[in-house]
């Protein structure tokens, strides 16, 4: 936990918002929504195919979490379709609009 005096305003702001997200359960909802959408749009399958290649390359026995994370995360971030990104951002903005003034 970060002591208050170390945070600047923005960071505090962000922390506060995150807190709010968690408390209201919105973060979980957003996470579920994102997961569902990613599966629906085939992101997961694409990424799985990529994983298979990586694993075949590295050898099944020698795969580590770090390897996977390093290889997969950037690709995963890039593969998210625009529509999903837009929708999620929209929801976040709505949440901010609702709760930032509280």
């Amino acid at each position, binding site marked *: 936990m970060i002591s208050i005096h170390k945070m600047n305003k923005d960071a505090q702001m962000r922390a*506060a918002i995150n807190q709010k997200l968690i408390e209201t359960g919105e973060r979980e909802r957003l996470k579920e929504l994102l997961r569902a959408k990613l599966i629906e749009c085939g992101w997961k399958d694409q990424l799985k195919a990529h994983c298979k290649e990586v694993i075949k390359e590295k050898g099944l026995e020698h795969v580590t979490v770090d390897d996977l994370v390093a290889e997969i995360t950037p690709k995963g971030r890039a593969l998210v379709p625009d529509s999903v990104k837009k929708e999620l951002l929209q929801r976040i903005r709505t949440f901010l609009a609702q709760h930032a*003034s509280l």
Partner: protein
Amino acid sequence: MWRPPRPCPAPRLSPPLRGPRAVASGGGARTSGRSDGLPGRAAGREGLSRQPQPCRRPLCYEQSERRLHKSLQMKMEEMSLSGLDNSKLEAIAQEIYADLVEDSCLGFCFEVHRAVKCGYFFLDDTDPDSMKDFEIVDQPGLDIFGQVFNQWKSKECVCPNCSRSIAASRFAPHLEKCLGMGRNSSRIANRRIANSNNMNKSESDQEDNDDINDNDWSYGSEKKAKKRKSDKLWYLPFQNPNSPRRSKSLKHKNGFSVCTSASNTLPLLFSSSGELSNSDPFKYSNSAGISYESLGPEELRSLLTTQCGVISEHTKKMCTRSLRCPQHTDEQRRTVRIYFLGPSAVLPEVESSLDNDSFDMADSQALLSRLQWDGSSDLSPSDSGSSKTSDTQGWGLGSSSSESRKAKKKKPHLGLAGAASGLGASKKKRPKPPAPPTPSIYDDIN
């Protein structure tokens, strides 16, 4: 409204904010209640409008969380929307989004890693050999499995029972009739048995039922009619004592057993529902007729006394219809008999009475006038429900009894003396009883 925090009842959840010294004094702080916290709280309270002082009060984790939360809330209240510009909000939103995506990716990584380590990651893959085996076929004329479309339509199977070559798609119904098993067969057989009991009561001397084939049209239900039409085609060279013909005539509207006179000479041509009554010694192939080369002289003679016997030009087989079969004339029959049995052969046919049971008189007259009618003599058992065949064949009813046709859409079972039974059968559809314009027989009976 700001309320003083309650003393934390639970044991310390995590190390408090400060170091070991805090631990010791944290408990002390707890037990001592709020005394220590007062200054801080007071500070907090006062700090609503100014930066809070760095608070050194040792707190348990929960308490510190709560405090932070409250301070942050206050902060947020300070920084209202007016204090933020859209770009900052947008930046925050992007950050939140990035966090969420990162979470998803990480989650996915963990899943994959676990699958790899547990060994089920590649389970859903097929080996390339199988993939090649079951590849989708994309050639013209084939379906995706590589099978030829329509392959079985033209294939012919040989029936193990009658050794005929049957089209594949018609094989099952044929077998049903051929073996005398299956729902229809048993139903019709039972009916025939029931009929024969009635019949035997009425006419005991008539061994030859000319309308044995007339199976069950007397029961006069449409569906039976339809079924009978397809059922009727098993040819039995000899009469089936269970022929329903008598009962049919009895039961039929007139209830006349008109068939009496004519029936005696008519052999059983059809067994209902294609049951091959095995009583007859001649298990002919279910072709339309009998191949006379295979018969001995005695057989031939007996056959010719009961059946039409006219040799069809198409199939070179003898007609197995009754002696009054309308497809062939008496002349033809005489010729055949002379050919086989010598010049002294006599046509045993008794054509005296028209088998008019259930004949529409108009029909019967039409039929009489059509003795010369030469319908298709191919009496193939229409086990294949080629109703049209039976229709057209209709024992010659096809063309001949157009008027009888008018009432019946489909030829119900074309019974034996073709016309008679056919018309009779059709009759069952007609509500009005056949007025007996034709003459003699009905008059007698009446």
